[in-house]
């Protein structure tokens, strides 16, 4: 029997980006807020040390900062008639754990989605007709527009100190930025980061081919910056240990560097680390959450009652907790009813490595930041006419090499033996002259009727709860998209002057063992219709009106960009709705 703790106004499940944003906004409103975090408290001075953070084996290969599969994992299969097996060791994505969440060890890419991404279904059917879309594709509009979200994009960019070059300032296209982006109300808070050699070479080649390259917007800062909360950040030092690692320089935007030191000093905020929420409790009507039950580090169960519950764990964990809490109707792909678990998506990522003549090119590839890079956006979203190509969607492509950590960056051209004397000589020959873009082709992943999440019938977690089951495969639309983008990308790498190139297309079946990105989205999507969405346009649960579900679980499908800026902007948007609408009149903010 769980011991009951004193009631709070708000309980927050998960203290990553969205939990920190929401906690800060609601404590500003004077509410008593308690955050419950499954993993440990981590901080720059103690956990991200400049004397030992540069450890590729410990942090990248052995995944030290991430969730452990023994704590929580998922089962996986490609198709509904297969048996799903547990993901025993992480591969295709890397779920976070602990205070700061993925904000600790992300790369810091700060992309806005395109205006057309938010009204995708309407936009595509108007331009190409309904029959152009694959029959089993279940894309939909978000229920929010770019213009509505713009102030909150701006807010999160200024929280993080984002370094970049504006491409569209209040409707005016700006030289050197991304000409395809939606209009922004202000320039970036800090100028774009300087670029290493191979990145500038990529931009030159892209311009020669007629594209408009621009620096990737970055949460690794080009200069010192003080954010609106008074948090001070330092310039990035291009150490090359960003993604998978914590930043020891206060240069990478994270909850630790931008929000938490401010938040923790407030009297009306408290947090519990190493405490895992088992379920959200609802009253007898099933329409009102009463709080959460969590288990602490000793295994003891506690009940934390609250008037308002914010579910702000990592995307896929949100969906799992909804299913374990029996909130909302689980999605059934056969009957095509229910919503929880529907429209799960990932990214369609591939790359092209380039091998250059070492006598002419020394890239010093170990110099990099997590979101350094020169990109082109001509082939993202609906920035180009898809009519002749027979697919929808796209992605940005770019030289976004974030460092050349030697275990993963000692490459050899195709045809070279993988071991022995020739392998060794070839590694030595090419290391300083290899272009290895991390996610060179960063394609979107649209949603489908038979790609979804539900509870596994066989495998259990350490508390005896069912693991969540991922049914996921690559569809012809995404495979065509990837072939098209990868070929365009290879052309630029070749134009740079590579003597050998190694394209690696993304093909079916979807593989759970090789890393793509940790952008696993959807499953608790936002929308205008309770029959096809879990939350309304303010991220409020249709079923339980005092529950808000934040994060990328709300994406109805995945555009061709990194999700974090939109995740943060949506958290500010939801917080604004709670502050200006919900608190005045608690209840459903939208009739459904």
């Amino acid at each position: 029997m769980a011991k009951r703790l004193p009631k709070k106004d708000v309980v927050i499940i998960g203290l990553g980006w969205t939990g920190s944003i929401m906690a800060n906004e609601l404590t500003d409103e004077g509410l008593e807020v308690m955050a419950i975090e499954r993993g440990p408290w981590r901080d720059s001075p103690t956990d991200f040390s400049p004397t030992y953070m540069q450890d590729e084996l410990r942090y990248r290969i052995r995944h030290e900062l991430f969730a452990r599969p023994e704590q929580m994992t998922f089962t996986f299969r490609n198709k509904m008639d297969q048996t799903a097996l547990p993901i025993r060791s992480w591969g295709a994505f890397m779920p976070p754990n602990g205070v700061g969440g993925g904000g600790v060890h992300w790369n810091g890419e700060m992309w806005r989605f395109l205006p057309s991404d938010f009204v995708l279904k309407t936009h595509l059917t108007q331009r190409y007709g309904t029959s152009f879309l694959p029959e089993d594709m279940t894309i939909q509009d978000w229920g929010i527009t770019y213009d509505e979200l713009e102030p909150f994009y701006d807010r999160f960019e200024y929280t993080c100190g984002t370094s970049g070059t504006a491409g569209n300032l209040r409707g005016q296209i700006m030289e050197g930025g991304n000409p395809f982006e939606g209009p922004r109300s202000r320039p970036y808070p800090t100028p774009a980061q300087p670029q290493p050699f191979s990145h500038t070479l990529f931009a030159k080649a892209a311009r020669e081919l007629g594209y408009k390259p621009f620096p990737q917007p970055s949460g690794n800062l080009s200069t010192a910056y003080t954010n609106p909360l008074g948090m001070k950040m330092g310039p990035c030092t291009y150490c090359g240990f960003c993604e998978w690692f914590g930043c020891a320089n206060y240069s990478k935007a994270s909850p630790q560097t931008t929000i938490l030191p401010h938040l923790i000093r407030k009297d009306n905020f408290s947090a519990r680390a190493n405490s895992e929420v088992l379920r959200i409790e609802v009253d007898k009507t099933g329409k009102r959450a009463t709080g959460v039950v969590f288990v602490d580090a000793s295994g003891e169960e506690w009940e934390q009652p609250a008037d308002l519950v914010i579910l702000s764990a990592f995307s896929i964990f949100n969906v799992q907790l909804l299913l374990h809490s029996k909130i909302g109707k689980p999605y059934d792909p056969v009957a095509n009813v229910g919503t929880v678990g529907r429209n799960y998506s990932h990214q369609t990522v591939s790359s092209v490595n380039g091998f250059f003549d070492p006598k002419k090119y020394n890239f010093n590839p170990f110099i990099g930041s997590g979101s350094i890079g020169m990109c082109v956006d001509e082939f993202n979203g609906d920035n180009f006419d898809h009519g002749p190509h027979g697919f929808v969607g796209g992605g940005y492509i770019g030289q976004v090499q974030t460092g050349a950590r030697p275990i993963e960056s000692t490459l050899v051209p195709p045809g070279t033996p993988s071991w022995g004397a020739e392998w060794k000589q070839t590694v030595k020959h090419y290391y300083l002259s290899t272009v290895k873009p991390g996610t060179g082709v960063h394609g979107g992943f649209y949603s489908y009727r038979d790609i979804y999440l539900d509870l596994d019938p066989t495998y259990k977690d350490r508390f005896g709860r069912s693991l969540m089951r991922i049914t996921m495969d690559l569809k012809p639309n995404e495979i065509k998209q990837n072939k098209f983008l990868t070929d365009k990308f290879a052309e630029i790498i070749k134009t740079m002057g590579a003597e050998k190139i190694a394209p690696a297309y993304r093909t079916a079946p979807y593989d759970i063992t090789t890393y793509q990105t940790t952008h696993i989205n959807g499953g608790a999507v936002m929308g205008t219709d309770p029959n096809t969405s879990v939350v309304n346009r303010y991220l409020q649960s249709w079923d339980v009106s005092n529950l808000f579900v934040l994060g990328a679980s709300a994406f109805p499908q995945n555009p061709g960009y990194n999700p974090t800026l939109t995740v943060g902007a949506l958290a500010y948007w939801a917080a604004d709705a709670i502050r200006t609408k919900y608190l005045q009149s608690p209840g459903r903010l939208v009739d459904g």
Partner: protein
Amino acid sequence: MHRRAVLAGAAYLIFRGSRAHATTILDHLPWTPNAGNPPDPVTLGPWVYFTSDEGRTIEALADQIIPPDPETPGGKDAGCAVYLDRQLAGPYGRQEGLYVRPPFMKGMKNQGHQSEKGPAQEYREFLAAFDKASKLQFGGKPFFELQTEDQHRFLKDIEGEKVKLDGVDGKAFFAQIVKDMQMGFFADPLYGGNRDMVAWKMIGFPGARYNYLDWVGRHNEKFPLPPVGLTGRAEWNTRAQR
């Protein structure tokens, strides 16, 4: 110990009775000075996991996968076998932190490794089957006693599935050994391989530095500084030769 266990995600098992409450964090960031968690460098000495013959086999494999050349030592002298021995004796060998609940079913390759056995046990079984196959083919000789050309050919045959191993997928496991040896070669020297940063010197990686601010805009120029490891450089840690 305490802190390490927290990081390993096993905190709920080992917190002492006095901490068996839902500890609340408020007013200040919950960190204390000098509470970092630096890595433990391996110590040289006898094998921790391997038997003596297993160790000799792995050293021979290390030199086949990463052969010595006039400029750079091979896998054996770079310490790759020591690296693997210490890894198998540690959390990696026991697949600590991974999901190891039953049932274990054979799946498709893209569903990932499904085995109750950790890498330590799998290496032991591979090495036994490998030794048996070598002795069968070479008149009772273990792999580490073969001529280097014979060793090379034998590995090629395993890779090409011309030689089958008893109860073990030789081709797949050899690919794993290649990966592990190369990982040890390029990891920080504190893990036992990449001794004296030979691998980093070979490729021109400057190691565990943290600041290239002055260098990000210097294009196509060779970075001049030698590598440094997490524990510094050998010459910082040993007495100057007299």
